């Protein structure tokens, strides 16, 4: 992760040239300047106090105010604050003067340094992906400021230092603010690469790791002024809704087009590949017209043959039939032989239902095609603005450079909003009516035409030696969604000499997608629950049993030991309570959790009383937000563990809204939830999802400790719990 892009390429790619007037600066080949604060007109600089663009990332005004450009989506994870914090740290900016704006959608300039440069906010990678490059960019901006002062005062740059938003020359006791420098600064032909050893020593960080730095977006989110795309209103705007295929892949024929067109307010009816769109002058009229659509759907779509409950039988056959070779995800030693030679062999299967993202803001987008048809604007909340922009351009038949995308806050993403499908749809409707169109998905649309975390089944087999320790491991995963099932199948922190991990995927024609923590949810559940089942049979303490598996990995041991200590692992608990422990690493962050539960044997309801979590996320850029993300991923995890299940029958999604797809409510929260981060100087790793994968198995393991029974099908609904405890 460290400096995967050499400093020299950084310089040549981000070469800045001063334009003739000396006021604006362009970047070679891309000739762009960040668009000015489209969201915030009062920030529009007036000509006198325009200030200076110091680099692609920052603009300084003579009065000292600093605009830093944030390249990441803000979907609740806090990166819009965390990334500017990293930049401002190395620039040595006075944080109270910083204002944050979205950067333009120019991946070649604002893409991160480590994964192909795409402007995607996924996989908890914003902070880790931008950490090195934003430190470098911040240090370069600081250099530009110091270099200008050195020239002005005619002193060697080496005699200068900085304090927040100030350049200092100690020898002559002179100081000058960044704002003043901005009034005369010129940019060098070439930005120097700042060597790593000249970046700040983390010991001297003022902003990174500062508990007091609060999120930039929160004030607007408590008074109703924060803008999501669904809030956009434009002059002359009309409303679009779409009735989509109940079975993925079915094509629509509209039977009553004439009738629909006659409904007052209806402007246009648009036939799409996967549905019928209605555009009307108000939202309520569009919805009424949608309800009146009579559509015949084509038969024969692949998905129509799929029913989720039956799929488990297919997966079971598949994982038990070794002649059906799948794709090997990892293989070492000779697991087949090792299992044969083992003192005892264990086998178990775990099931995971489809899950729906349930982001609270349903999908939506606003698209406006210019009257002459040669350019367009898009307002949306997206995790992948570059692909959303490209998708709109394709639908509208425009060059991407003719499409402007205005990023908005996302009312939740969780992986759903890195698909551009809803932007494509809005573009198709806008193209048909040549008016600004706001497309809204109802909750029912959002759920029934969802892209789900795939259904899957995990088959595990492990051999133990005479001491009862696991030495061999055979792990076969089956389900739909292909690669989505692979993440988290590996166990880099456990020492297992003979191991095989294989994926035998089936395609049902169902739409699947990354869902917070992707495959780590189901895979870590299976792995960690299985380990406890073996430990229980071997009459070993599951915490110590894991310690042995992790013996070669101090980072993993550290989080496990930390959480065990936080929870007081092994202490005597009240009657009817038990604790469970589990470990998982996600986005490079090892984490472990303990929960304490009780069970209502009448209703089958599991109550989680306490949760403790320890995570190693390297350097923690924003400690309070990191804690909030961990709390959130633990609670979203609990939601999926207890409540969430999408079922599909003959290709049709059976659920439609929160009454039949319940998610966690406040009534379900634990009495206490405690999070600790390991002190670390390592580069940051991802924290947006880290809590999610280990909470499910921690619950299952507590249940095993409490009842002696294993929960092998997630979610752990009361019916399944009762069936498990009843099935002695």
């Amino acid at each position, binding site marked *: 992760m460290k400096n995967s892009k050499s400093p020299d390429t950084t310089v040549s790619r981000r070469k800045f040239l001063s334009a003739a007037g000396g006021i604006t600066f362009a970047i070679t080949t891309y000739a762009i300047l960040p668009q000015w604060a489209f969201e915030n007109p009062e920030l529009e600089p007036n000509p006198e106090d325009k200030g200076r663009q110091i680099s692609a990332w920052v603009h300084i005004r003579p009065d000292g105010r600093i605009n830093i450009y944030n390249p990441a989506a803000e*979907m*609740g*994870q*806090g990166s819009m604050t965390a990334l500017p914090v990293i930049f401002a740290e190395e620039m040595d900016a006075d944080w109270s003067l910083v204002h944050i704006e979205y950067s333009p959608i120019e991946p070649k300039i604002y893409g991160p340094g480590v994964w192909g440069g795409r402007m995607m906010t996924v996989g908890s990678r914003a902070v880790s992906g931008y950490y090195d490059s934003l430190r470098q960019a911040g240090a370069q901006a600081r250099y530009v400021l110091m270099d200008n002062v050195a020239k002005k005062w005619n002193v060697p740059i080496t005699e200068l230092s900085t304090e927040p938003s100030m350049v200092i020359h100690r020898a002559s006791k002179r100081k000058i603010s960044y704002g003043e420098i901005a009034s005369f600064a010129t940019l060098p032909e070439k930005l120097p690469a700042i060597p790593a050893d000249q970046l700040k020593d983390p010991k001297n960080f003022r902003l990174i790791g500062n508990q007091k730095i*609060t*999120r930039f*977006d*929160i*004030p*607007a*989110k*408590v*008074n*109703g*002024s*924060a*803008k*999501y795309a*669904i*809030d956009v*209103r434009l002059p002359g705007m009309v*409303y679009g809704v779409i009735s989509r295929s109940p079975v993925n892949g079915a094509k629509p024929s509209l039977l009553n087009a004439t009738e629909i067109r006659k409904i007052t307010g209806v402007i246009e009816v648009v036939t799409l590949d996967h549905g019928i769109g209605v555009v009307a002058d*108000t*939202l*309520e009229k569009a919805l009424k017209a949608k309800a009146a659509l009579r559509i015949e759907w084509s038969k024969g779509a692949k998905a129509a043959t799929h029913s989720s409950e039956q799929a488990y039988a297919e997966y079971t056959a598949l994982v038990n039939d070794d002649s059906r070779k799948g794709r090997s995800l990892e293989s070492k030693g000779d697991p087949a032989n090792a299992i044969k030679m083992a003192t005892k062999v264990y086998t178990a299967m775990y099931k995971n239902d489809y899950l729906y993202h*349930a*982001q*609270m*803001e*349903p999908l939506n987008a606003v698209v406006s095609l210019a009257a002459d048809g040669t350019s367009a604007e898009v307002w949306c909340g997206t995790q992948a603005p570059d692909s959303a922009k490209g998708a709109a351009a394709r639908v509208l038949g425009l060059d991407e450079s003719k499409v402007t995308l205005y990023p908005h*806050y*996302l*009312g*939740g*993403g*969780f992986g759903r909003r890195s698909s551009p499908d809803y932007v494509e749809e809005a573009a198709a409707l806008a193209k048909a009516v040549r008016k600004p169109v706001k497309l*809204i998905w*109802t*909750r029912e649309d959002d759920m029934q035409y969802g892209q789900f975390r795939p259904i899957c089944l995990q088959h595990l087999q492990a051999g133990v030696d005479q001491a009862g320790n696991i030495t061999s491991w055979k792990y076969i995963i089956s389900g739909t969604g292909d690669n989505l099932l692979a993440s988290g199948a590996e166990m880099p922190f456990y020492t297992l000499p003979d191991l095989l991990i294989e994926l035998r995927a089936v395609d049902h024609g169902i739409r699947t997608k990354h869902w917070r923590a992707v495959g780590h949810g189901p895979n870590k559940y299976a792995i960690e629950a299985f380990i406890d089942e073996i430990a229980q049979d071997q009459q070993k303490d599951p915490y110590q049993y894991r310690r042995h598996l992790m013996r070669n990995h101090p980072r993993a041991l550290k989080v496990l030991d930390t959480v065990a200590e936080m929870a007081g692992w092994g202490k005597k608990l009240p009657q009817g309570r038990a604790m469970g422990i589990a470990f998982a690493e996600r986005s490079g962050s090892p984490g472990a959790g303990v929960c304490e539960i009780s069970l209502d044997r009448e209703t089958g309801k599991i109550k989680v009383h306490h949760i403790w979590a320890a995570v190693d996320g390297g350097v923690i850029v924003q400690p*309070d*937000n990191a804690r*909030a*993300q961990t*709390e*959130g*991923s*633990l*609670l*979203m995890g609990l*939601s999926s563990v207890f409540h969430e299940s999408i079922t599909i029958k003959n290709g049709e999604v059976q659920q439609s*809204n*929160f*009454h039949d797809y319940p*998610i*966690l*409510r*406040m*009534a379900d*929260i634990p009495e206490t*939830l405690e999070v600790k981060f390991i002190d670390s100087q390592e580069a940051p790793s991802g924290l947006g999802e880290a809590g999610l994968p280990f909470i499910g198995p921690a619950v299952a393991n507590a249940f095993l400790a409490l009842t002696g029974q294993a929960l092998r099908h997630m979610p752990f609904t009361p019916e399944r719990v009762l069936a498990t405890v009843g099935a002695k």
Partner: protein
Amino acid sequence: MATITLTINGEKRTVNVEPDTSLLWVLREHLGLTGTKYSCGKSYCGACTVHLDGLPIRSCTTPVSVAEKRAITTIEGLSTKGDHPLQKAWIEEQVAQCGYCQSGQIMQAAALLASNKKPSREEIINQMSGVLCRCGTYMRILKAIERAAKEI
């Protein structure tokens, strides 16, 4: 179509809509008061919570005609400067993540504190359990309400 006069945050507003149009669409799409959110449209999630004569209601299933002649309060009108004790506590506790549910959370909590100045933890949980938060900010919502209750 009917001409309907509403009193929203102390101001009279007139709209021309079908009387069965939901108060939510009227607030958001006709009047531009977009702080109140749409999420489920069926009274399941609480994102659209506003006050009608001081009581919390789900605007998504309330026909606009029902709201006529009554005082409607939305998040925009909860306080003049965004300084209701709950709003301050929400910032202190850094509650919001995506933020989409938070207008509804705050409006629901404000109605609770207006009728019960010192709610117990159980009372808070009971009152708030109808407002969903997908980001899982519940621990902080609870703390923020407890903090605000101390201030009132």
